[in-house]
């Protein structure tokens, strides 16, 4: 009976890695929202941090009877709480930058396709160059030019990512512009802005939307990498990346937990997003099923 039950259960479950990774991603987002409520400690509040309990191993019993399940970092901050709060920063930075990059990229793609000529040539040459260089290099060039800081890192990720959306959207918009309904709209003598926003953009936005999960994953990884290199978010408001970075010096003396657990949390987040993105893409694009 139990085997039959499991079989029914299995047949009811959607196929692929989707349910698990989607549930994991949902949990991450919930945790990020609830962090101030569920975190045992506020790592930004110096009064709550006990410096004398620094670098405690996982499972150590703290002074007030609270068990540091994942240990404490070099300043005495509870790792569980640092992960919860770091997650907020990581998600905040990546969601803002992905959203803005998508808007900028889609707009640039539609504008390039609609106006053509030198506007198109200029936009697409910049896109070509950017996409031909490794993202980390573009990000480093942007950071060197802009300087460090949380707003600059968002800007740097936007600079890195807009090009992908622009290229994809332009290709679709070009084929849309050749269609007769747009001739009709043009004959109505609607203002250009209205044609672009109400007619071209809604019809060419779909491929860009499928890119969003994948680019979100890239954004989180990029923010973490830049923060790790000391070029990202400031250390007093650590993201997951800078938390791992802060643990690096302790790794050599055997205090592995400071970088191990935040890194695992980061890996889980990026992997969940990538699996979800992979599934979304293969559902929407029948060709990529074979890929």
């Amino acid at each position, binding site marked *: 009976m139990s085997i039959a039950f499991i079989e029914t259960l299995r047949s009811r479950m959607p196929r692929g*890695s989707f349910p698990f990774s989607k549930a994991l991603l949902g949990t991450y987002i919930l945790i990020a929202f609830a962090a101030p409520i569920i975190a045992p400690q506020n790592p930004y509040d110096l009064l709550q941090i006990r410096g004398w309990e620094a670098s405690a191993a996982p499972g150590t019993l703290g002074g007030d009877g609270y068990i540091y399940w994942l240990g404490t970092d070099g300043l005495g901050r509870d790792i569980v709480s640092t992960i919860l709060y770091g997650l907020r920063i990581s998600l905040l930075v990546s969601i803002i930058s992905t959203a803005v990059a998508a808007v900028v990229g889609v707009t640039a793609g539609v504008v390039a396709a609609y106006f053509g000529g030198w506007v198109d040539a200029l936009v697409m*040459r*910049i896109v*070509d*160059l950017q996409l*031909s*260089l*490794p993202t*980390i*290099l573009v990000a*480093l*060039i942007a*950071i*060197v*030019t*802009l*300087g460090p800081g949380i707003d600059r890192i968002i800007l740097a990720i936007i600079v890195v990512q807009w090009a992908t959306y622009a290229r994809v959207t332009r290709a679709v918009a070009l084929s849309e512009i050749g269609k007769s309904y747009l001739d009709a709209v043009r004959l109505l003598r609607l203002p250009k802005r209205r044609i672009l926003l109400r007619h071209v953009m809604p019809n060419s936005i779909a491929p860009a939307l499928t890119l969003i999960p994948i680019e979100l*994953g890239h954004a989180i*990884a990029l923010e*973490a*990498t830049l923060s*790790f*290199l*000391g*070029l990202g978010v400031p250390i007093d408001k650590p993201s997951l*990346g800078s938390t*791992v*970075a802060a*643990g*690096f010096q302790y*790794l*050599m003396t*055997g205090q*592995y937990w400071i*970088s*191990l657990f935040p*890194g695992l949390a*980061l*890996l889980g987040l*990026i*992997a969940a997003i*990538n*699996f979800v993105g*992979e599934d979304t893409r293969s559902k929407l694009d029948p060709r990529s099923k*074979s*890929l």
Partner: protein
Amino acid sequence: MLSIVTRRVSQALLLLLVMSLIGFVGIHSVGNPVFNVVNVETATVEDIRNATIALGLDQPLWRQYFLFMENVVTGDFGTSYVYHLPAFKLLLSKLPATLELAVIAMALAAPGGVLLGLWAGRHQGGAADRAILRGSVLALSIPSFWLSMMLILAGALLTGWFPSGGRGATLSVAGQEWSVLTGDGLRHVFLPALALALPNVALIARLARAGTIEVERQDFIRFCRAKGLSSRRILFRHTLPNISIPLVTIIGMQFGGMLAFAVVVETIFAWPGIGKLLIDSIQLLDRPVVMATLTFISVAFIALNAVVDLLYAVLDPRVRLST
């Protein structure tokens, strides 16, 4: 063919020129590098002024830029504010370390990725295929800095099999120091090369798998089967050459990507290559070295892409004949 390559390279170089201008203005607005050269606590106003004049920072920005570009064309990026060596020479002295790291990493990644991809593609839908596919998504999700740290933890600190950083013993050949020529150096290069290789194994495997599935469906493979060729011979003599173009592209591009990603891996493994030099220089506001390194990596990447384009003609008779 050749004209396409030249046009693409010249376009890229033109854009690099524009980017160098933006970068020059940007880096100038970040902070005054004079304060890295003089000791802020003891320097008098006179000292600061002398240093400013000596570095040419008293000139208007446009003149600094033209002077800079004039020198760049002759391979002169100025003198490092920190090491007091010519920036380009400093860069070249760090280049062998990065090159050998990237070559070893690619030597691990390319055969590994191709074999995994062929295997997965041949057994499409099977357990091994699904495992390789899932594994590749996971491998591409691991942040490279964390992977490097965990490799240090597992490979060096817990087991003691490999050293945790540095280049180890080197052998001097052709005026440069090489780690790969000594046993100790090879032990040192293994962990950082593995960290660089792993995401590339995943990338190459996915591409090889997709190509294999597509090619093995075609008639000429069916004909090979009908002829009674062994499945191994079909895979390596008929399928592999037909998927070589995208593979060469990704291997070429990822090799350039490794030069850039070495920034992360070198920083963690204290590997004295150009990536570590770049990060150190950014943090020390060592402008000539930053500009030299960024320019070098970008140009190297563009050159690599051009080489890959030319390789198409060698690998694919169809490309050669179409021009």
